[in-house]
């Protein structure tokens, strides 16, 4: 029996209708394509009236298939599947055609775009006729959640979930949680002490009954899918037995090996070979840095072991792999600072008194290496003038084309600290001053009032090549004051580079492990940039904080809480729907060659040794189709993506070159594509 297809072409206001003659497409499909029973165009198909149109037609005309030509299925496939369900039609008998992102938005020529829309619609009509009713599957959601990254975003997400009564595993690669926020002195625009507002959250996480804290640990492997992920964590060897250590700190005090602390102190201070990154570290359990420990270097010393009152030192400790099971994962892996050496004309690493902003944060911090005194590298001279350079590695096609977003405000904050703590003159060299959150512009105004000087111009170079006596012994900042239109040179004592916020070096690799993707810049891609900012394209994996893009503390906290809310919702619901789009092996034809077993990226195929056939574990299968194309016997089929559906779709797209010969050839398992 022939199918009765309903076709609905959306104007999307002028988004589609501006470039595609949607009335023509609907009319053409109704008059020219076989089996089309109803064909309509409508201003906004996704509106409730649009949906009702589909529902009514299904009921009135007895439609057996539906094609909606509108936007991306990412946005509204669910909407129209629901409409079909409401009218009693299996939702998988509906096909969406993307004539917006794939057509109207990318073409200029109206006639050609309309022609293409016809082809896309025709392709969907031919395909939908071969679609089969499918029933969605449901799996239980494990109540535990994995949070990766113990910076402020990860801490917030952890606390929200733990406080709601759900178990959380928090994995952090550094020896302590806290992230970059722990390094800062003050926070803008309120000038709260960063540590004062952060450490209460840290200790809450450290003591929470629902939180399993795994610091100095790395994500190793993720398998499974939403609701039931299996995760392997590598607990790196601390060489301190976690449960025995009381955190007394004698080992750190007595360790004879001092090394430069390039992590927490950003190279501004030292630490010992056995260390806790900072006094308020959570947990208060040190680690031994095997790269610098005298014992690991030349089998001498063991001072820490001798002095430890609880015998907690273990030089033989090995990395340990921990297996956990969780229902959802929140990625909060944070950012890294731009390497300012990549811009040699700013002199970092060559000119002593050029600082990165993180170095300066440590310099300002009362708990930092100078106890908060702002002095030059000689350790004693207070600067008389300080230049703050914006956009170092940001808004620059040679490094990062994006705006790092937070540096303008951070520069104002650092400028304020200089004004507050010294008598120095402070200059800010900016391209555009970006202060567009609550109370940010007011902070800018405050600094204008405090006498910070603003020069609009990207700094060309920082040099010690003096041209006149007044420049001798100074760092000269050369730039164009673009508001004056002249090249200027500013001799200063200290230069602070506001380096860009960059993704973690291994963000892409970590993303691959969890099955989520990165943008070109290396930030994790959210499901929708506006309407679904913390979900990802992989169900059950969420993102929060700067791993999704540069942002400040309030925004990171908001995202951490938002991700936790999404996870809470999943746990409360208890079950999650899984798309029935999975592979199926016809056991009759399976030779048991096991080629598919190894090809499957999700380990979703098991081999039944007794029956000598392979079987798909439907709960794990993502319907990617790898096994379908790999099977030498051709006995694996992908639901919703059968050969017959795909060939029909191709033939539909080529409607003007191909005409169905007779019904018999359409029914064949594989329809040969005849050359026009």
């Amino acid at each position, binding site marked *: 029996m022939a199918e009765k297809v309903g076709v609905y072409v959306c104007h999307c206001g002028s988004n589609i209708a501006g470039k595609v003659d949607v009335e023509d497409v609907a009319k053409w499909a109704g008059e020219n394509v076989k089996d089309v029973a109803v064909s309509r165009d409508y201003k906004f198909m996704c509106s409730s009236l649009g949906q009702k149109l589909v529902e009514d037609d299904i009921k009135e005309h007895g439609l057996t298939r539906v094609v909606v030509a509108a936007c991306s299925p990412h946005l509204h496939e669910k909407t129209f599947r629901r409409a079909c369900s409401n009218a009693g039609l299996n939702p998988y008998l509906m096909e969406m055609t993307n004539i917006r992102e794939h057509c109207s938005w990318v073409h200029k020529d109206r006639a050609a775009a309309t022609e293409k829309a016809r082809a896309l619609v025709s392709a969907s009509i031919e395909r939908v006729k071969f679609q089969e009713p499918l029933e969605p599957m449901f799996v239980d959601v494990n109540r535990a959640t994995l949070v990766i990254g113990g910076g402020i975003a990860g801490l917030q997400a952890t606390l929200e979930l733990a406080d709601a009564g759900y178990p959380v595993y928090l994995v952090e690669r550094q020896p302590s949680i806290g992230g970059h926020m722990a390094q800062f002195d003050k926070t803008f625009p309120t000038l709260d002490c960063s540590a004062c507002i952060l450490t209460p959250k840290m200790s809450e996480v450290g003591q929470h009954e629902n939180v399993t804290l795994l610091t100095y640990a790395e994500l190793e492997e993720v398998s499974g899918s939403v609701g039931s992920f299996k995760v392997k964590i590598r607990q790196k060897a601390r060489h301190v037995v976690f449960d025995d250590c009381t955190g007394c700190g004698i080992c750190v005090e007595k360790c004879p090996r001092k090394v430069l602390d390039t992590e927490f102190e950003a190279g501004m201070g030292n630490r010992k070979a056995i260390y806790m990154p900072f006094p308020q570290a959570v947990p208060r359990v040190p680690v031994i840095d095997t790269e610098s420990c005298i014992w690991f270097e030349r089998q001498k010393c063991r001072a820490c072991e001798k002095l430890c009152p609880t015998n907690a030192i273990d030089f033989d400790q090995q990395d340990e792999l921990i297996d956990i099971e969780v229902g959802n994962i929140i990625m909060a892996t944070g950012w890294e600072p731009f390497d300012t050496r990549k*811009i*040699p*004309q700013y002199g970092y690493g*060559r000119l002593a008194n050029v600082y990165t902003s993180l170095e300066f944060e440590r310099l300002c911090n009362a708990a930092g290496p100078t106890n908060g005194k702002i002095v030059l590298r000689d350790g004693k001279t207070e600067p008389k003038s300080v230049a703050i350079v914006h956009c170092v590695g940001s808004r620059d096609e040679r490094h990062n084309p994006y705006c790092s977003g937070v540096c303008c405000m951070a520069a104002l904050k650092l400028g304020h600290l200089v004004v507050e703590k010294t008598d120095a003159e402070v200059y800010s060299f900016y391209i555009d001053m970006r202060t567009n959150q609550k109370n940010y512009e007011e902070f800018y105004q405050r600094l204008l009032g405090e006498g910070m000087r603003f020069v609009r111009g990207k700094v060309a170079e920082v*040099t*010690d*090549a003096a*041209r006149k006596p007044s420049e001798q012994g100074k760092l000269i900042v050369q730039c164009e004051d673009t508001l004056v239109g002249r090249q200027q040179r500013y001799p200063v004592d200290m230069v602070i580079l506001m380096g860009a916020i960059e993704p973690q070096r291994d963000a892409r690799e970590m993303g691959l492990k969890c099955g989520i993707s990165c943008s070109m810049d290396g930030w994790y891609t959210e499901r929708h940039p506006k309407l679904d900012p913390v979900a990802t394209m992989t169900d059950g994996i969420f993102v929060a904080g700067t791993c999704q893009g540069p942002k400040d503390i309030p925004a990171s906290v908001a995202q951490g809480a938002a991700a936790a809310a999404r996870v809470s919702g999943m746990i409360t619901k208890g079950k999650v729907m899984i798309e029935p789009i999975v592979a199926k092996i016809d056991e009759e034809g399976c030779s048991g060659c096991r080629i598919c077993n190894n090809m499957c990226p999700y380990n979703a195929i098991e081999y039944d040794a007794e029956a000598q056939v392979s079987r798909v574990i439907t709960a794990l299968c993502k319907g990617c189709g790898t096994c379908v194309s790999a099977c030498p016997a051709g006995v694996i089929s992908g639901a919703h993506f059968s050969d017959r559906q795909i060939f029909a779709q191709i033939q539909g797209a080529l409607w003007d070159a191909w005409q169905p010969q007779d019904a018999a050839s359409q029914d064949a398992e594989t329809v040969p594509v005849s050359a026009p």
Partner: protein
Amino acid sequence: MKYAYYPGCSLEAGSAAYDKSVRAVLDQLGVELDELNDWNCCGATEYFSQNELVATSVIARNLALVDSEHDQLVAPCAACFLNLKKTDKLLAEHPAMKCQVDAALAAGGLSYKPGRVHVRHLLDILYTDVGPEAIKAKVVQPLSGLRVAPYYGCQIVRPLNGFDNPEYPMKLDEMFEWLGAEVVDYPVKAHCCGGHMTQISEPEAFELIRRLLQSADEYKADVILCMCPMCQLNLDAYQGRVNGHFGTSFKLPIVFFTQLLGVALGIDMKKLGFGKELVSAEPVIRSKLDGSSVGAGT
């Protein structure tokens, strides 16, 4: 190792010392240089100021003249190097321009396929292809005690070099460390010498020259090493006039890097073109290197 060699007009007369020392040094290092037959002027910056198509066609003639025996063309002069390299890139990336240049070349019975000739600067050849081992092995007169200020200028490192940092190049620094010299790490080593400004507007040019001399002098350099004839001319020949203009008393010898490399390799100073510079280099080199044997070599 075998390269087509494009000396450029300046090396024929004004900077014959460069040409002489390049040939002597590469010969000593076993590198074969075959001078490009009937090469013409690259036009420096002057053709590009008038007519871009003529500029690229004039340069393309040289690329077209490279025979099938060679696929690498070496230029010692900064402007020649950049012009040859830039033209090859323009032709590869801009089909419409390539079409017109093809027609112009055809009028002279020539043709050129972009990318066929790999344009290299002399420093790149010495640093990368010959390399530290081969060079160190041939050093007979280490330059210890001599403070050299490597000067890169502009067009060798910007915008197209591909072998060194455009802001803070290091390759020449490293090479002279291989030779045992005390290398001066001064901040203006890739700044401008004034280029053709010495011909057009002296006050501006003199200021640019002064900045370089002053910085090298502050860092107590004995000599400045040049890689470009224009840089050498401006720093050397105009040094007296710059002193007159600013009331300074710089007396910095400006030599081509190949000249001093030749000294380290033990080549006779006469064969390296010493003596043509206006601020004499020989006395300081001889006194610092403390060798009656200096430059007496092979």
